[in-house]
């Protein structure tokens, strides 16, 4: 036979100094006491039925809502109220009544199980007050810090917006300057071009004359060489001794072939040799230096123009890749690197090689060139300045476009990084950028995700950051990291874990999520029941 369980319970309220007995059925909170009137029929709280009062807490479930058994485990959906004097009151599921496990710190849930429970409410209350106090302090200080952060962010934002406005203004001026300098450059380049062309043309003519002279001398020399019998004529037989002249390259230079070369004549004198020379000069080997191939004339077209590649940007259409670079490495806000890769401008005078070095420009031309070069340099400098300005504007605009919270309180995290070292790895969180993991004892870094979005609960999405699309996992997803933000005075990564393969969880404290502290008087003192 089961026993009828105790109906009434005593509650001692300590706040008034003297114990006050409040009688009510076991497990009923004070707020619901009026529904449980002794010796009057009890109506289930859902109104479904009415039962005699002796069936309340009789260890049999009569009400569908479990309200007739607040102090026993009879109803599957019931709940039990523990007062927990000294700590905070709470409800536990009825199934935890007398299950041998101490759930209520005032031990009231284990009144018939044999479990040895000790009343730990006072201790817990103290501890909790301590914790709450500390938390309150942290919240308070954190909230103050947050205000500063908001203030700074506001200032910073204004500054930056101002800066952008200024820079936009400067940019306009720069653009105008660039245009003006472009005109100057183009104006200076026109006479330069003409003077250079003139110079070049003169030089070409001079070169042609020299070449002609050289050819004539060679022809005369060849005539003398060929005219073996020195009779003032070159004959068929004399020419035939030069096998290299064989037109069909079959190895023999026949008489007929020689006659062909000689235009049908049996012999030629110095004046008529000219036409023969035209036929043979490409193949002719001088007898004095027979093996050396005739120096190949550099055809005039191949003479290298002095290279001055100064009419285009050093990295045309490079903006896109620069943008990507920025994403990769945001700390380089200003692309100082650009300076290093600008090509040095070559001057034509120094650039010529072989013996046929071009004559130096005449002073007038050189003056024009120098003037044009200066115009080009000026133009480039101004263009570079404009590009830098653009970069700066873009960076600031990008920063301004981030959602740094309702009051921009998360702004200060931008372009910062925070590390946590565990037994195996160094974890690095760069807010709004990426999360990574690096083995402590060497090894390459793994991307645990790049900034995705705020993804906290609906009522406050700023409590969770999500970083996605990190390095892929074998047979699994790409790595991703969830960062949970809690209020703290300091900005620190406090823990990391990998609850699922390749899904990381990071705990991060920051003043930026500290809420306005609640009134300290609301701390539990164990008397709210009254």
């Amino acid at each position: 036979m089961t026993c009828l369980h105790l109906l009434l319970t005593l509650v001692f309220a300590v706040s008034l100094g003297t114990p006050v007995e409040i009688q009510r059925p076991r497990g009923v909170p004070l707020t619901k006491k009026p529904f449980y009137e002794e010796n009057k029929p009890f109506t289930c709280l859902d109104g479904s039925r009415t039962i005699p009062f002796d069936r309340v807490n009789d260890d049999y479930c009569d009400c569908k809502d479990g309200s007739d058994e607040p102090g026993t485990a009879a109803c599957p959906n019931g709940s039990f109220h523990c007062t927990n004097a000294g700590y905070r009151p709470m409800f536990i599921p009825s199934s935890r009544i007398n299950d041998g496990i101490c759930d209520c710190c005032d031990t009231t849930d284990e009144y018939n199980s044999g479990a040895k429970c000790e009343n730990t409410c006072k201790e817990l209350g103290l501890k909790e007050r301590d914790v709450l106090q500390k938390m309150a302090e942290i919240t308070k200080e954190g909230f103050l810090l947050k205000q500063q952060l908001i203030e700074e962010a506001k200032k910073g934002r204004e500054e930056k917006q101002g800066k952008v406005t200024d820079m936009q203004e400067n940019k306009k001026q720069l653009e105008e300057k660039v245009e003006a300098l472009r005109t100057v450059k183009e104006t200076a380049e026109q006479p330069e071009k003409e003077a250079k062309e003139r110079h070049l043309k003169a030089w070409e003519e001079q070169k042609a004359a020299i070449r002609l002279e050289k050819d004539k001398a060679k022809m005369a020399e060849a005539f003398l060489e060929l005219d073996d019998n020195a009779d003032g004529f070159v004959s068929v037989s004399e020419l035939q001794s030069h096998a290299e002249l064989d037109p069909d390259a079959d190895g023999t230079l026949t008489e007929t072939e020689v006659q062909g070369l000689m235009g049908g004549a049996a012999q030629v004198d110095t004046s008529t040799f000219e036409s023969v020379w035209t036929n043979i000069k490409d193949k002719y080997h001088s007898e004095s230096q027979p093996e050396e191939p005739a120096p190949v004339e550099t055809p005039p077209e191949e003479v290298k123009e002095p290279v001055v590649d100064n009419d285009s940007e050093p990295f045309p259409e490079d903006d896109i890749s620069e943008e990507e670079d920025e994403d990769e490495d945001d700390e380089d806000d200003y692309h100082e690197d650009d300076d290093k890769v600008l090509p040095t401008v070559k001057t034509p005078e120094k650039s010529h090689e072989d013996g046929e070095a071009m004559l130096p420009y005449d002073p007038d031309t050189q003056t024009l060139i120098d003037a044009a070069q200066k115009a080009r340099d000026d133009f480039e400098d101004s263009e570079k300045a404009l590009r830098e300005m653009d970069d700066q504007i873009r960076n600031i605009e990008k920063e301004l476009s981030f959602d740094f919270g309702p009051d921009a309180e998360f702004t200060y995290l931008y372009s910062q990084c925070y590390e946590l070292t565990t037994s195996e790895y160094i974890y690095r969180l760069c807010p709004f950028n990426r999360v990574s993991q690096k083995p402590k004892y060497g090894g390459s870094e793994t991307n645990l995700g790049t900034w995705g979005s705020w993804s906290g609960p609906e009522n406050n999405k700023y409590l969770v950051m999500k970083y996605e699309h990190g390095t892929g996992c074998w047979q699994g997803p790409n790595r991703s990291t969830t960062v949970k933000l809690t209020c703290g005075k300091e900005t620190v990564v406090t823990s990391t874990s990998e609850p699922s393969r390749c899904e990381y969880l990071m705990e991060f404290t920051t003043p930026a999520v500290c809420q306005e502290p609640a009134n300290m008087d609301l701390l539990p003192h164990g008397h709210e029941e009254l």
Partner: protein
Amino acid sequence: RKSCAVPSSPCSCSWTSSSVLLTFAVDRGNFKTCDQSAFCKRQRALKPGQSPYRALLETLELSDSRLTLQLINDNNKVHLLLELYRLQGNMTRVKINELKPLRPRFEVPDVLIAEPPTEPLSVLSKDDNGVVLSLGAKNQRLIVSARPFRLDIMQGPEVLLSLNSRGLLAFEHLRLHKDTDKEEDGLWEETFKSHTDTKPNGPTSISLDFSLPGVEHVYGIPEHADDLKLKTTDGGDPYRLYNLDVFQYELYNPMALYGSIPVMLAHNTQRTMGIFWLNAAETWVDISSNTAGKTVFGKMLDFVQGSSEKPQTDVRWISESGIIDVFIMLGPKPSDVFSQYASLTGTQSFPPLASLGYHQCRWNYNDQEDVKSVDQGFDQHDIPYDFIWLDIEHADGKRYFTWDPHKFPQPKEMLQGLMDKRRKMVAIVDPHIRVDSGYKIHNEITSKDFYVKNKDGRNYEGWCWPGNSGYPDFTKPEMRAWWSSMFAYDQYEGSMENLFTWNDMNEPSVFNGPEVTMHKDALHGKWEHRDIHNIYGLYVQMATAEGQTQRSGGVERPFVLTRAFFAGSQRYGAVWTGDNAAEWDHLKISIPMCLSLGLVGVSFCGADVGGFFKNPSTELLVRWYQTGAYQPFFRAHAHLDTTRREPWLFGPENTALIREVIRQRYALLPYWYQLLYQAHKTGMPVMRPLWVDYPKDTATFTIDDEFLIGSDLLVHPVTEEGSRGVTAYLPGAGEVWYDVHTFQKHNGAQNLYIPVTLSSIPVFQRGGSIIPRKDRVRRSSACMENDPYTLYVALSPKKFAEGELYIDDGHSLNYDTKKEFIHRSLTFANNALTSSNLCPDCNFLTSSWIEKVLILGASKPSKVLLKMDGKETPVDFEFDTSMSVLTLRKPGMNAGADWTLLLQ
């Protein structure tokens, strides 16, 4: 867990990551077909009807317990010795060995619980053609025919079963290597992939055929991922029995899996019989049937025209070594076959009650914090559970019996935390031992010389989780005794009484071995691995369970889960179906896989809820919980690479669905416990095919999408994606079934369409049964120990019902050693419900009482009286006319008392 799959791990597995990524399926190329297994190929090439074997009747000797007779192979003149035994309980044992083998041949020890008691055989008649022996009971005779040799077991004029009727008895005798032996026959050596199997003993295989006239349905021979009813194997591979770690196994084929139980059941409307082929070597089973190709219409036509040949199933067993040792269990009822098999190999171990609760597992719970937060998660979401599990990552460098010092620095603190919640833990202990001179277990095994040896006599080493590993020789009794001693609290550091064990990878799995297992020419003492392979896993679990019993001084029940198993494994704990996948078909196959195991003794079976590989959809996960909650071993498990799937991670609605079904499981724990007790006592399977209880109803013979739990609950889980309804077959003409959720009554012998939603789990209670429940579900089974019972009395059309109630302390062996239990019979007849004592000399006191009695299918009484201790007291009641449910309010008697409730 799990097969080797991670390329970066030390295993030198041949699966490439790309093939794994592209296809989700077993790599069949890693495993042999019959054609690639030399002995199977040789044996299968034999043609029926040409048996060279002849019985030498003049050699017949008959003693009290056995008959012996020599057989001769007329082709090679080798003599065999046939032994026939008539065993108590309607069984016949047939043993065939070489009369004078060159060396002894392996006979499997430790499977039979005792030498089976015999009954005398007598010779009824004898002439030159044969001998007729009496099998005692019911006009049963055994006929030995001489030329060719053949055995027929008959009852009256009917042949029940014949041996060698197709002449496929083939016994490869031990011999000396001859130069004339053809290399391609693989007699002395064979190579599979890069692995060469040296065969110093040459060919040793054996084979025998069985004919089953009148039989169209055969079952058993697990483990295969296939239908309950075995298929014919003509034109394909035979069913293979060879314990293997199969990575991402494929469904609906006869490939070998992690365990082997060489027991087949044959059933028709008249009789159920069993064949137990006691051999631990690689085994293949061919099945053919003369009706397999015929349609129902074709069969009917045969019947009408009277031209029907009698349906018959032919079975042929082929093993690589050992002897022929076969037990023929003659039934005739299904329950007779179960008790016959149980009398040979023992029954299901009686597990601690808590192990019937819900198990939460994952590869891996990362650290103590993780364990704590999962534990708290269950309380926060008010979901009961009993066991949380730790996979291989918990150990320090995969050195089992140790703890990772960073992740689990304080195991006892963690276990105490669980104990405070009255919960328990399982940690994995696999049989491969890391070769590491800094590891105590390895050093002791080495110094005691307990490792398996390779063919050259050095310690066998293979790759597994820890890298290079040794394999203890569990076939050695001294080795097992030592292993057991390692579970003592002072040996297994950090262990406590609520820590239990999981043996995985005990096929054994060898990542770089042939077919991912041990080389067949490795040595266990004088026997080759070839001889003992299929029993290795049994020994691992045996030694582990024994260790757990010993650590408590023989007081507490062990709980050990194993992946590999053999005949007899049921005595040592639970089995699960290995590394399945989060796919609907894998959910479906969990039913026939566990049903097949139940038929051959292993009742405590389950599949990984949710599926091990891959991520289940929420719907699949919910459906899997709903199915798993109604299977004996109920554990969720997941692969390392899957996303977390604790029950509360899928939104409040799905959390509620999962909570609800786990609560249903806990409410039914008294019934489950009683069924496990019954299985332990009688060998009756807990989870059963319908035909076990309805053996004459042919409609039940192929059903494997629904099942019975005991005799009284019928479950038809929803295993189709997006299902809006299922059709359940309710058996039993003239019987009724009650929907357990609504109490609606349905007639038996009908296909019932049941519309379903995601919350539906079609479950029915048999009219005529009484099921005790504990409806006050708490956070663990231990917390419910003293809770009261509600009796669900489901009346048959004749207003009758009966059931049982079993109660003990839930965890100790005192039920056995001190008879400390309560076993009550509950009977409703003549408008009176009576509890009477089934074990008057038992002593156990419970504080549990009867809080409520629901009588389904009742009519309204005018008065209800409780008769107890000579007194009569009125009992309050309510009657629901719409469903005819009578509820007796708080009769309040102690659950162990004698009482009667009278309805007037």
